[in-house]
């Protein structure tokens, strides 16, 4: 069962049977730019990047992105940079895995962002989506469609934050501009 999330919607990551999630994956997928025939290497590739920023009390303490693929504590892992996108049929082209049990105790929020590294706005990207998957079962928890998003080059997707003993995910869907996550930090802060 998938929840198509709307902006600001929060879903608890507690399972129905009372147990809480131990591992989640934030997947990002988009359709590669159409190939040019002649001079195919000049295809205007679309490079979207998924990043995760770990916050402790509203201060960024670590970040996972294509140049730092594993958080120092090992709780958040990026599966690697995809520079061109995929088939746009629902598969993840980039993914960030979060081992919730290993997140350091002082980290209380993890914010997921998507940037267009090559500068195309989300209007120009087809079939872009972002989803959250329960990594232990492969079940999709939430999905967010990105395309048609307008003149933006970045989006602050969602945050996973501590609530009680477990974690809650809130869809943010805040549009922003920026090439990498660094440009987004000012835009993230009001949403913490």
């Amino acid at each position, binding site marked *: 069962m998938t929840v198509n999330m709307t902006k600001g919607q929060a879903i608890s990551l507690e399972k129905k*049977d009372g*147990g809480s999630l*131990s591992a989640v994956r934030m997947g990002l997928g988009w359709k590669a730019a159409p190939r040019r025939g002649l001079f195919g290497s000049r295809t205007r590739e679309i490079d979207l990047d998924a990043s995760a920023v770990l916050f*402790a*009390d509203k201060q960024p*303490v*670590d970040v996972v992105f294509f140049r730092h693929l*594993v958080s*120092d*504590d*090992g*709780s958040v892992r990026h599966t690697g940079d995809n520079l061109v996108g*995929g*088939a*746009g*049929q*629902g*598969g993840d082209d980039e993914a960030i895995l979060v081992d919730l049990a*290993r*997140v*350091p*105790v*002082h980290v209380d929020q993890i914010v997921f962002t998507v940037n267009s590294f090559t500068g195309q706005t989300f209007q120009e990207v087809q079939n872009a989506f972002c989803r959250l998957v329960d990594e*232990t*079962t*492969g*079940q999709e928890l939430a999905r967010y469609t990105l395309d048609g998003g307008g003149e933006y080059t970045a989006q602050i997707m969602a945050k996973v934050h501590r609530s009680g003993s477990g974690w809650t995910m809130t869809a943010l869907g805040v549009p922003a501009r920026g090439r990498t996550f660094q440009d987004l930090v000012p835009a993230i802060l009001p949403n913490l």
Partner: protein
Amino acid sequence: MAAELVRGQNHPLARNRIEIRISADAPFVAGATLADESGRVRGADGVAHPGAPTLPGIEVSRQAAAEHRLAVDLDAMPETVHRVSVLIALPATPGGPTRFGALAAPRAAVTGLDGTEVAGYTLTGLDAESAVVVLELYRRHTAWKIRAVGQGYAAGLPALLDDQGLPQAAELARGIEEAVARGLARSVPAPTTDADRSRRTAASAHGPDLPGTATAAGSPYDVQTPGDSAVRPAPPEGPAAAPPTGGPVDYTHPKRRQPPSPPAPEAPAPADGPVPPVAGDAVGWSMDERLYNQVWGMFEDLARSTAAYRSAVDFADSRLEKELDQVLSDPRSRLGSAGDAAREAARARQAQLVDQAQAVLDRDLAQLAAESEVVEPALPPAYARWDNPAWHGYRVPTEPPMAVRLGDLHLPESDPLRIPMLVRLPLERGLWIDSGVPDESRSVEAGELRHLALQTAVALAARLLAVHPAGEFGVRVIDPAGAGASALAPLTETGALDTPPATGAAGVAGTLGSLTERVDLVQMAVRGGASDALPSGLDTSRQLLIVHDFPHGFDDRAVTQLRYLADEGPDVGVHLLLVADREDAAAYGPLLDPLWRSLMRLTPVPDDHLADPWVGHAWTYEPCLVPPGSHVLQGVLTQVVAARTKRT
């Protein structure tokens, strides 16, 4: 290595008898179509499916399952068949998934009969498709190749079959659905009856020896009468109806039946608490490699868990400081109890966070300690401490190991847990045992430290000798002043050295000269591509050169030669093990800095100077020394020498 295919990619098949394994997380139907040179399937009898599971050279399962194994014998394929398309489809079961997009990406693997994977392919990006051509096998001249296809059909099996050029695609698709429904009905969990048991034994008797029966005459690959397949009369209901012998092999596990209407696959609830660790719980081609990877996994986990702990504590401390500053800067709280209360609260918050971090660290450490307890005893000699029983049951190996243990590593937080420090062989860098470790609080005096440093070097040299096959590793020693005689005793007394330790300036020059010449010759031969042109007298085994008391007895020429060996030696099998105090070589000034930097520094006493590659903690290194009073070193070296003499 198995090739991981992407859509459209092809791959040669080195063998003609293969198995294609396809798995998804819901039951599905698997089949295959056989097409001729022009790519057309000649009719319903060119399709292997649950209703007609066996065609010459290929066999598919009779029922829907979450995993399929298709046996393929390309030698048995009729000459006219030029392309075999392997397809999967979701059955129309009530409540079951209707599109592959609802499932995790199915995966196909092509394996030999012995289970070795030839190629793998994951069908990503499926959405509304309910039938997919997974891959195809096709003739290219005389050989067969495999291609990853991944062509899906949202309109399902009829559309897929139609696309293959089958005239009665819709009819055939219906026939397949029926056969699947029968298969599902057959697999209703029934109380065990005699008939059921006989089926079970039939299946188990023919399951494992498939490779044998596949080639035998009268095998499942026998040609069936044409027309039999598509409109085959419904087999009588009941499990006993399965052909008792010679019939198609039922690949499904007799106890693993599909329920009639499979609900959405429910993942098994993760077990509460951590799973008990097992030795070799990592990937790798051999136990050696699996243990190596597991140890490095433990190393990384410990580094990262400690990083999490340290960053949480740092955060708690800085927050406390900030809050105390706030209290201080607030004029109202300077006097009276309000300030005290605020300070108290801030400290409590800090203590609580530190406690939480400690609890998490303790949990991780307990898990790693439990893993270490099962891993340490399972380690082979090359990875084991000297007190490990593996060394008492030591036998001279026939192959060199992939890595060797240089010592133990730990962090202050992780005491008493020790992580084996494993480095790959052949050693990429020379080693330097520092006999001049800055000694502030330690009671070890300088002379003793030097002795200990050489002992460390000897234990390491003995380990390297012992883990290589007889005659493939040699140790030479330069001990200019002869000061290391007592520490070198295990090597000299057992005869593990080919030549006695070289002493005096002449010994230094002689040993370095011969090793330099060796490096030159091997390098020339390797560069010229003429390794067989080496002089016959040249010993081609790897060499470890222990240099004691460097730079005592070295002149400028010898120093240059040593630097040359440190730079060029590892590539051609000459490795350095320097036992030295850097202070002794201070006279050379910065000239030797590149030498020290090129060597991996180890210490005879615990010292925190090694950084991990992930977060850069300072790890405390401890050497692997033989327990006092133990004669394991002598015993092992005696065996090494005996094996070497037997060989020559």
